[in-house]
């Protein structure tokens, strides 16, 4: 599967599927609380299984700076 993390610098990872979202995030070292996982314009929960041929986006939800 293809996993795109768009920020801070866009990175694309190839991973072997099927795999649960929580395992993907563990490999990426990203806590679920700080991201959203998008597949075909829908959101995936940590227990969702991502098939090998899927392309997903793991989008960090954290922003910074002084408001």
């Amino acid at each position, binding site marked *: 599967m293809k996993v795109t993390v768009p920020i801070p610098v866009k990175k694309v990872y190839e991973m072997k599927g099927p795999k649960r979202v929580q395992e993907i995030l563990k490999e990426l070292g990203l806590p679920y609380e*700080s991201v959203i996982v998008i597949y075909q314009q829908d959101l995936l929960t940590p227990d969702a299984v991502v098939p090998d041929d899927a392309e997903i986006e793991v989008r960090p*939800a954290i922003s910074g700076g002084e408001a």
Partner: protein
Amino acid sequence: MKCTKCGGKAVVPIKRHNAAFCAEHFFEYFENQVERAIKEHRMFRRGDKILVAVSGGKDSLAVWDVLLRMGYEAHGLYIDLGIGEYSQRSKEKVLKFAEQRGATLRVVSIEEEFGLGTPEFARKAGRPACSACGLNKRYLFNREALRGGYDVIVTGHNLDDEAATLLGNILNWNVGYLARQSPVLEATAPNLVKKAKPLYRLTEREIASYCVLRGIDYIVEECPMAKGAKSIEYKYLLNQLEELSPGAKARFFFGFLEKGRPHFEAEQEKVEVRPCQVCGQPTTAEVCAHCRMLQRVGAAAAP
């Protein structure tokens, strides 16, 4: 994972509430949290004229969207910070959002106001970019709200922002800030417009989820000037805590509001607030921090 309310397929789990929601019930949860924030802190009422500070990011567009859906008279204020292509892209997102909803949008440009974009402005001011930018924004929010006759300025601050700010203020024992940190900042002086943060009960993940599910096209990339900001590090640390102990961020911030802040507020010395001799906005000095910064940069402020 199933929706706690209807048993349908869940798309947003919320561990601190021991719940998970489908899109429809997540929207209901989201609006309920916003409504609760508005009522508990008497942020504004139906019929009030609201100015929403919008950046093109998820938080500000989400709060503008939800207030419009809830029937509030909410206009947008976009400040073009003059940060190259980042500002161009964020402005496009805001213009598109307003156009799609037929919403009223005011636009102000830092370059047109002060002659310089934020990077150059901050360099000349000798301040970190986020600090100079924050001072410019706060000044312009208040000025535009006064000019437009708005009752309240709304910002997209969320639970992660507030918890990270609180952590920073405690680590440095900034007692003055601890006395003032609140979901609502009252208009305590003439020419000062009330400020409110209706998203303070919601996390960044919930707000990003709301935007994706509502089809709100926000700017995903981080402001290039905010790279390495302490607040981002604090947020990652707090989210690690949240994973270990769901609800940690909410307990930390809501507990502070209930038990910590009153203590710091009581300890705070009363300071005299007067109009700035240059721009007329409230300040504790003769000339406000924003006008002093403009003087250093060599720019003039329009009153």
